[in-house]
């Protein structure tokens, strides 16, 4: 280990307030030279807010940041760069069609004395850095031709090359296989040896123990603990991340489950998920829980016919149905609410009226002509019933808030008289007030006998509203728990692929 340990960055008493939410509440955090500092917490705990403040994407409401003992203000990403703070993000911020070397020197390509690009220098210098880090990538390769792991390595090398003193890794292993993860860790350790201070964020808690020296736990914007990893264990860490009463916000009155209306049997797709089985009853909210990239999204999209699957059967009201496209799913009364509303759920340039009726035009038309009266009535009724806040049904959907957009999507399926609803991260990116309204709507849906499937990576929410939860880890169905057996720790363990069954839990 590097001899301890000069402090690079110190954060003191950071507060960050968003309208209605205290995202960070008096956070202290330090980064030392040659130290890997883990940052864990559930979704919404404040990890990304903290990172965004460090990289200049957000400004703290209150609090101070010191770099090398000097107080600084990080007003934008350029300030962060000048302070030598860099980040490796998942959605790789790179020029994908340029070569590795070009990406290395992006914006600062060396010129020769004629003012042309000095390719020799560009390539040689890049190769040198890659060699130093033991990364087997050709500097002349187009970035897009590299694997996800290689791309990440290249990004790390770039940070190294730029001599950043602090490098932030945000879920770096989410897209990697275990072998690639090993290589990544090797590169990270190399950075560490060079005295770089590293912030490491991951949902995969085991990784924290593999690579971090210190770990900080955030929960609901508060710092719960900061300790050397040698003084904690997996169990303890998960307990600290959870530790919350989750019952109050999600006051959905649950139905007695009656007849089964939807069943999925031995659903499989090579490399994505295998042998998924579950049934959903009338009046039930069925949760599917998995961490980022666990395959939950692929499973529900395959069920909905939006992505291919290889094997498996679907039954609606005990009758076998064939669903091979969203078209047939819709015809069978299934509605899908994607996570990314703007890019997948809504035609944002079009009106509320048009979006609400989007799936129903065939049923409200004769000889291809839309019945405008029914179209308007549909829209007006839904706007009223779901309390969609809009000046009118002709308003362009782009101008509505996230919560109201979600309601418009829901209205679309209600107009189409769906009985089975698939929600993908239903409350992602919408504020607390709108969340509660969405929960109320869920309640109305199940009261009417609909079946709801929700995939969510936000456990407190899922535990609050679901009747049963099945856990997916890397495409494998781990276990299905019913409401009275919900245990946040147990669910998180299952989702992390940890399968030590404590006897007393049975």
């Amino acid at each position, binding site marked *: 280990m590097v001899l301890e340990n000069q402090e690079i960055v110190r954060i003191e008493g950071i507060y960050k307030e968003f309208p209605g939410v205290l995202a960070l509440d008096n956070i202290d955090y330090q980064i030392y030279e040659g130290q890997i500092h883990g940052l864990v917490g559930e979704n919404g705990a404040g990890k990304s807010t903290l990172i965004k403040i460090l990289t200049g994407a957000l400004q703290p409401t209150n609090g101070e940041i010191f770099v090398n003992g000097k107080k600084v203000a990080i007003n934008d990403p350029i300030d962060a760069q000048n302070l030598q703070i860099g980040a490796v993000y998942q959605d790789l911020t790179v020029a994908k069609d340029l070569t590795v070397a070009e990406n290395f020197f992006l914006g600062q390509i060396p010129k020769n004395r004629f003012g042309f690009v000095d390719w020799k220098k560009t390539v040689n210098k890049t190769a040198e850095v890659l060699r130093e880090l033991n990364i087997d990538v050709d500097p002349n390769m187009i970035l897009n031709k590299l694997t996800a792991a290689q791309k990440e390595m290249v990004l790390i090398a770039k940070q190294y090359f730029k001599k950043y003193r602090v490098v932030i890794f945000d879920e770096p292993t989410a897209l990697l296989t275990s072998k690639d993860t090993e290589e990544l860790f090797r590169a990270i350790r190399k950075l560490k040896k060079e005295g770089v201070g590293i912030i490491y964020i991951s949902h995969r808690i085991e990784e924290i123990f593999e690579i971090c020296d210190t770990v900080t736990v955030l929960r609901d914007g508060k710092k719960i603990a900061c300790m050397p990893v040698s003084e904690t264990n997996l169990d303890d860490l998960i307990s600290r991340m959870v530790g919350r009463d989750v019952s109050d916000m999600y006051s959905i009155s649950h139905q007695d489950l009656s007849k089964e209306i939807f069943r999925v049997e031995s659903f499989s797709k090579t490399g994505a998920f295998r042998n998924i089985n579950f049934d959903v009853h009338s009046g039930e909210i069925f949760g599917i829980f998995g961490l980022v990239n666990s395959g939950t999204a692929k499973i529900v999209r395959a069920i909905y016919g939006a992505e291919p699957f290889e094997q498996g059967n679907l039954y609606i009201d005990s009758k076998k149905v064939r669903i091979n496209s969203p078209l047939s799913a819709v015809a069978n009364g299934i509605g899908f609410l994607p996570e990314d509303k703007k890019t*997948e759920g809504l*035609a944002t340039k*079009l009106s509320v009226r048009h979006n609400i009726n989007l*799936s129903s035009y065939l049923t409200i038309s004769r000889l291809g002509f839309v019945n405008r009266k029914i179209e308007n009535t549909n829209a007006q009724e839904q706007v009223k019933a779901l309390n969609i806040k809009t000046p009118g049904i002709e308003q362009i959907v782009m101008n509505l*808030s996230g919560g109201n957009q979600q309601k418009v999507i829901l209205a679309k399926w209600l107009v189409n008289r769906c009985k089975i609803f698939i929600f993908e991260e239903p409350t992602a990116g919408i504020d607390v007030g709108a969340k509660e309204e969405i929960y109320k709507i869920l309640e109305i849906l199940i009261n009417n006998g609909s079946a709801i499937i929700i995939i969510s990576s936000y456990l407190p929410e899922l535990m609050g509203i679901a009747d049963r939860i099945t856990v997916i880890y890397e495409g494998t169905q781990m276990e299905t728990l019913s409401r009275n057996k919900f245990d946040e720790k147990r669910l998180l363990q299952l989702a992390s692929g940890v399968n030590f069954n404590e006897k007393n839990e049975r």
Partner: protein
Amino acid sequence: MNKNRDKKMMANNKKFTGRFQEINIFLVLVVLVISLAILNKRFISIENISNLLRSTSIIGVVAIGMTFVIISGGIDLSVGSVLALSSVIAARLMTSGVPIYLSILISLVTGAIAGLIMGVIIYEAEVPPFIVTLAGLVVFRGIAMLLTSAKKIIGLPVSFTHFAVVKVLGLPAMAIVWLLLIAIGVVVARFTVFGRNIFAIGSNQEAARLSGINIRASIYKVYALCGFTSAIAGVLMAARLAGGSPSAGSGYELDAIAATVLGGTSLTGGIGGVFGTFFGTMIIATISNGGNLMGINPFVLEIIVGVLIVLAVVFDHIPKRSGTKLKIKTEE
């Protein structure tokens, strides 16, 4: 809170420009017509107006199909070539003694099939419409040339060519065909399921797909429709030229796109309409007709049209640009 305020601001902005744009293009036309009428009495004469409508009708018909394709988020560069192909097929059939109406029918079906083929390639092979229809532009022109050995087919029946000069209710029959098609186009865009789906696909194809809209059928239909309207224009062209010319309609794709964009249809899809395209077509035609009457250099007129197109697109982009700025701000 801040977010809401920004959004609201955006809403007003958008609503304003949205309405402004349609009225705007109409007002431009009105102002243009009135000022030309004042400047030159001959412009407003029935003779000139009816000439104007007649000469504009062919490109006007092409622009109708183009509007649908652009609303769906695509583009069709092949319209001029499909026009030529249809017109030589109609001419060849007529000169071979096939009855006029049957010849027209076959020619129209050919145009629709040409469009359909491109639609199939665009959807099934996921090749960008720009590429597929660019190939179509070359290929269909080539076929038209092959069929005719690059020579104009002449000797069409007089009862057919007569259509180009005949007047109905005081208006040229060609113009009546155009206006009728405009009316049908407006109805299809505004009142049919097909129209609704085309807008949805142009606004967000993935959302449309996940909403259970049959994308395949809609894409097939929209390109077939554009081929069909190009073929109608081809038949009109054959009547006007009293023959089937394999080089007819070259460059029409740009004129049709210009008219469509000037009429307020967004090149990124999801926004627009056939009515706007009618105004757009009329503005371009009026500028060149009026300018000619006043003896303005036709090259100057071309420059004016070019500037107008850019202005129309600038209007199209202003709300969007401020939109993205706000989005970046709110996302942080």
